[in-house]
């Protein structure tokens, strides 16, 4: 009621309207300013939203990149493991190859060893003449063993001496006859055991490098004496020791067989002759 009264009284009063109008205008201005501020704030927030969205996108990209890096690192790690394994396998393969190469060399050496023995044994009994057997004995001594100077002594009829029957590269003053008793070669023949200076260091200068007794039916019938080896031959090899055994056991029978064949007029024994001899 009082407001109505006031309003009625204001309607009647110009200054009140003026004040009201100013208040209204003031409110309007305040509203406009507020709206303007709101608009400005809205624009700022919109801008901020864009910024945040950009930041978000960047972070997403970063996260994606990090994920890729992580995957790449994992892959690198896996590859490193594979590399290490491959290196290990390569090393094993190289070791195996090295071992196989060594084995191949050993096999080739073994082959050469057996080839020499086979050929020497095969050829030693391939001739039925004394000259043929002697030629083969010379080949074994000179070409397989590498002896530059050697001599063959055989036991005399009385059994007390060793007589020089052949040789090569020996000095002119080589003894043509040796007593079984008291001589170095005679001692080896009596004992039936070879005397070999493996690398030429254990015997005095001028001493034989090897004395190989020749046996036949468990009896020593003579000996090979090797005085000197070829220049390039520094020491005896494993094959040489086998060849010495071969010479010791087979040279005697080969020589005796050839002697009997030649003495018998190169006549081969018939089946009847072998049967009558108690075959």
């Amino acid at each position, binding site marked *: 009621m009082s407001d109505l009264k006031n309003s009625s009284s204001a309607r009647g009063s110009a200054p009140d309207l003026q004040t009201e109008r100013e208040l209204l205008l003031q409110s309007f201005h305040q509203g406009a300013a507020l709206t303007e501020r709101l608009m400005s704030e809205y624009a700022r927030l919109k801008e901020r939203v864009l910024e945040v969205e950009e930041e978000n996108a960047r972070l997403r990209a970063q996260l994606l990149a990090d994920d890729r890096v992580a995957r790449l690192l994992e892959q690198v790690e896996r590859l490193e493991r594979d590399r290490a394994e491959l290196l290990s396998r390569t090393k094993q393969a190289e070791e195996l190859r090295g071992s196989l190469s060594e084995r191949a*060399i050993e096999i*080739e*050496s073994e*082959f*050469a060893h057996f*080839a*020499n023995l*086979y*050929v*020497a044994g*095969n*050829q030693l009994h*391939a001739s039925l003449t004394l000259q043929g057997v002697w*030629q*083969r004995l010379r*080949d*074994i001594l*000179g*070409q*397989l*063993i*590498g002896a*530059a100077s050697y001599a063959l002594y055989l036991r005399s009829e009385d059994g007390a001496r060793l007589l020089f029957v052949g040789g090569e590269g020996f000095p002119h003053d080589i003894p043509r006859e040796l007593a079984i008793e008291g001589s170095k070669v005679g001692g080896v023949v009596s004992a039936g055991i070879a005397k070999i200076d493996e690398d030429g260091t254990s015997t005095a200068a001028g001493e034989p490098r090897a004395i190989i007794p020749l046996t036949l039916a468990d009896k020593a019938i003579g000996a090979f004496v090797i005085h000197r080896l*070829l*220049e*390039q*031959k520094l020491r005896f090899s494993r094959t040489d020791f086998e060849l010495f055994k071969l010479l010791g056991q087979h040279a005697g029978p080969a020589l005796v067989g050839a002697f009997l064949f030649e003495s018998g007029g190169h006549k081969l024994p018939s089946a009847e002759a072998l049967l009558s001899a108690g075959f």
Partner: protein
Amino acid sequence: MSEYSCLVVEDSPMMRQLLVFALGRLKNLRVTEADDGVDGLRKLASARYDIILTDINMPIMDGLKLVKRVRSDPTHKDTPIVIITTEGASEDRQRALQLGANAYITKPIQAPQVIATVKELLKLE
């Protein structure tokens, strides 16, 4: 795989057998044997060989004469020749190389050395 042929000229049956044995380790290598230089030339006249191995000291015709004759023959002038000598025979070795031999092997013969020399001259794997 191509097959190669080799002529071994050596008067000693033992050394010849040993060389044939060693060369038998090489696959695709056919080996023919000759007793001396004359026999070697006879075999060279009737067939082509990819390589020749010859001893120096042989009766009838020695290795030096054989090398000379082979090198003067247009058919075999490029055929590799390996001579087999003793270590002391350096003059023979030099003479053989001057006459056209390609390599030498010293006695006592070692199978691996024979194989390596032939492989190298024939360029075998």
